[in-house]
């Protein structure tokens, strides 16, 4: 982001991240709440895959930190999860790019689970772990949405002139 991108290109990045953050706190009806995917995580993964040289650990931390502030959760918990998520994605980006879409979705599922597991541990350590299996549904939904999200974000990236 800081490597001299002009305003128009930067707008695409900032806009997608902002939308993801807003989607993360937008109210759903109570029954749909457990099915909300981790929008911020998904968008982060996409940009880390597409432009790992500009979008990586630091941005992941920042996004996680923003999430922490908006959620009122323990400051640093989501930041740590997103940092690790970004790191793993950047580390694996060459393989992940080569995968067919469904296989990519499976790998993304693994990454999202790692992120959730880390956050679960942290919440367990301060005695606030939810004791339901429904806790993992956001990762499942995220992986199922991935192929479509990938297409949408790729389109936005090309329109935004980010190659």
């Amino acid at each position: 982001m800081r490597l001299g991108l002009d305003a128009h290109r930067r707008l695409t990045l900032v806009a997608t991240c902002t939308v993801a953050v807003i989607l993360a706190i937008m109210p759903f009806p109570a029954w749909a709440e457990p099915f909300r995917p981790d929008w911020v995580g998904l968008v982060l993964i996409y940009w880390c895959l597409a432009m790992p040289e500009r979008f990586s650990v630091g941005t992941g931390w920042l996004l996680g930190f923003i999430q922490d502030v908006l959620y009122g959760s323990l400051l640093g918990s989501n930041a740590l999860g997103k940092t690790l998520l970004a790191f793993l994605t950047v580390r694996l980006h060459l393989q992940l790019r080569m995968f067919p879409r469904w296989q990519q979705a499976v790998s993304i599922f693994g990454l999202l689970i790692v992120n959730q597991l880390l956050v679960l541990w942290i919440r367990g350590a301060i005695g606030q772990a939810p004791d339901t299996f429904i806790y993992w549904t956001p990762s499942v939904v995220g992986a199922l949405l991935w192929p479509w999200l990938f297409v949408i974000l790729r389109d936005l990236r090309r329109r935004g002139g980010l190659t």
Partner: protein
Amino acid sequence: MINVFGRSVGTPSNFTRLILLSALSVALMILDHRGHHLEKIRAGLNVLAYPIQLIASVPAYVGGSIGDFFTTRGTLRQDNEKLLAERQGLNAKVQQFDALEEENARLRRMLGSAAQVADKVLAAELVEVSSEPFTRKIVVAKGSRDGVYVGQSVIDAHGIMGQVTQVASQVSRVTLITDAGHAIPVLDNRSGLRMLVFGTGDPDTLKVPYLTSASDIKEGDLLVSSGMGGTFPPGYPVAQVRRIVNDPNEAFLAITAKPAAQLNHGKQVMLIWRGTPPKSGASAK
């Protein structure tokens, strides 16, 4: 640029950054959890977060407005009738309430204990944003400039909802009694048995641990706040016992309860300021 082991030092590698940022996150977490050193910083950050929360709440707000706009006359009339009937019932109760309050004060004076003063209540609108997945928290549109403080009790028309855990100038965050990290001291209204009610993270379930099969508790019992610990005011409904399972293999009963307050409905909550008891109860908040 200097090369150290084949890496340029000017730009740290992703791994270095991972380590540094992880350390920073852990430090933040410890500061936030252990010492509550970050209250000021968090309050400032919450002010910055407020616009984003407002934007996120717009669709729900617009949806609600559209819903209100298309409410039929029939529904409105029905609502009105229901409310009038309800008001009549409440008025009848209030007539007794004045007399009872007077009697209660007299009795308390005779006992020499602190008189219970009516609590001050302020209605607060909900800001329609979701909290972190699988936590039970809500944001209300009243903050420190309205006198809201951390630890304040929040109720709705049916019972206790939770307590204020973070305060910014215009908004504050309320942890509901169903949050996995929350516990509230209660009494069984029938038997007077004291216990703790824990949240589970499930929006509709509370659990009551640490009671043995000899305890005097039945399904359907109303649990009211006991006021112990000084955070919650005594005498407000908290939950109703839903199911008691006595597994002989377990040391304690497995008891689930249903919150009395309607935690998922409504757009308004009420913040309570405890009436300050005169003279003798100086230590009470």
